[in-house]
């Protein structure tokens, strides 16, 4: 049952990306905003609920050490990604957003930076601040 719900969530998320986009700048922008800022909450909620409810087909993969580490650094990936994104875009052709091949560089650089930050800065700082601030 969890696997069925999880699959439905992924199908809904993919559908939001591949469903036909309207032509015309305003219609495209409005649809983009509706899909990526509002409607995407539905598949995301379904996926998170299914994964949190218990073991699924993805559990063995998500339990691997690299997956768990990716989870640990995910906040860093989220908060730092704008830096390599902008540097790559500006350095290469002064254009945002970047192309698909540039995206590979951006993702790679972001993960390296976030991993270094997690090990050398975030984790020590978290332990230090918890000791300092905690009761």
């Amino acid at each position, binding site marked *: 049952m969890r696997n069925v719900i999880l699959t439905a969530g992924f199908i809904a998320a993919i559908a939001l990306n591949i469903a036909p986009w309207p032509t015309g700048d305003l219609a495209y922008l409005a649809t983009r905003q509706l899909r990526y800022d509002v409607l995407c909450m539905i598949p995301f909620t379904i996926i998170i609920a299914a994964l949190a409810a218990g073991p699924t087909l993805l559990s063995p993969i998500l339990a691997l050490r690299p997956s768990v580490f990716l989870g640990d650094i995910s*906040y860093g990936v989220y*908060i730092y990604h*704008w830096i390599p994104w902008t540097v790559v875009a500006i350095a290469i052709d002064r254009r945002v957003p970047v192309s698909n091949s540039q995206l590979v560089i951006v993702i790679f650089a972001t993960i390296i930076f976030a991993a270094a*930050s997690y090990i050398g800065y975030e984790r020590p*700082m978290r332990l230090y601040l*918890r000791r300092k*601030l905690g*009761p």
Partner: protein
Amino acid sequence: MSFFFVLSGFILTYRYWDIFAEGMDRGSYGRYLAAHVARVYPSYVLALVGITAMYALLNWS
């Protein structure tokens, strides 16, 4: 972005539901705040400084 909003709402509820169900007092809310600041603010401040420096260096907004 949206995925993180849903995820953080879920995680905070998952983690603190039982603790705050017994009532929010200075102790429990203080521990939550300390853990929150310790986890979120170091990278937040670094990103803020980094992005500000990046735009200053690129002279582009």
